[in-house]
């Protein structure tokens, strides 16, 4: 069987790649994709712990369902904000959306 460590390390690698995408990219849609990748890495952890530590109640799987719900709501809203940003500023570059900058 698959050792739990391997699952967790895969999830950590996906999370780190998503983190890099969020930090290094400037295009708003790419930053959103990085966030999605991080949320998926967290879901892998939830499901791994549901299977390995709590197979009777599978609470982790229920948690993962709620994470997916919130992630999808977040994508819808974020894309609406990106569309509005593009209409106002004619750009999707986050560095140019600085009108609230101190």
């Amino acid at each position, binding site marked *: *069987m*698959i*050792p*739990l*460590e*391997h*699952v*967790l*390390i*895969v999830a*950590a*690698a*996906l*999370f*780190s*790649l998503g*983190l*890099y*995408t969020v*930090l*290094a990219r*400037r*295009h708003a*849609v*790419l930053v959103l*994709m*990085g966030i*999605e*990748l991080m949320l*998926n890495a967290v*879901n*892998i952890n939830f*499901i791994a712990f*549901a*299977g*390995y530590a709590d*197979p009777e109640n*599978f609470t982790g*799987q*229920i948690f*993962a*369902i*709620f994470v*997916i*719900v*919130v*992630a*999808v*709501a*977040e*994508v*819808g*809203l974020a*894309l*609406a904000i*990106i*569309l509005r940003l*593009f209409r106002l500023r004619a750009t*999707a*570059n986050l560095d140019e959306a600085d009108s609230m900058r101190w």
Partner: protein
Amino acid sequence: MTGIDLAFYVLAGVSIAGGLGLAITRSVVHGALFLILALMGVAGVFFTLLADFLALVQVLLYAGGVTILMLFAMMLTQVREQPEATNNTQRPWAAVASLGFFGAITAAIVVTPWPRTLPEGAQHVEFVDIAGTLFTRWAVPFEIASLLLLVALIGAIIVAREATE
């Protein structure tokens, strides 16, 4: 090593390759396609970890919904005319931060004693069990989640619509 183990390592490699492609590609559209690859790999990983329902939800919602929505947003924001800037000074710092994070997490995972394998007799979780638990023990969070989806729906329409006056 059984077939399911082999499938796990192959699918984990696919999803990490997709994530790597997303992190290093220059084109936003290629980024979306790499994201689809990564999310499908994650769906397969869910399946090898006995979560059939979530694997299906992952394919339907992410590969079918979220990435298509993102491609729509790219089409409407005309990303083709605005290639990603190449003189990005944040990149080395981002690499240091994410590699440092990965190293710290991996070290923590390796030194912690875990239950090594799936318990004997672990089964794929049946859809009917998930539904039963979701509508009894987790009924209140379920209702709150539906309210959240409604609010996000209305909010997205209000934010994205054209000003009419």
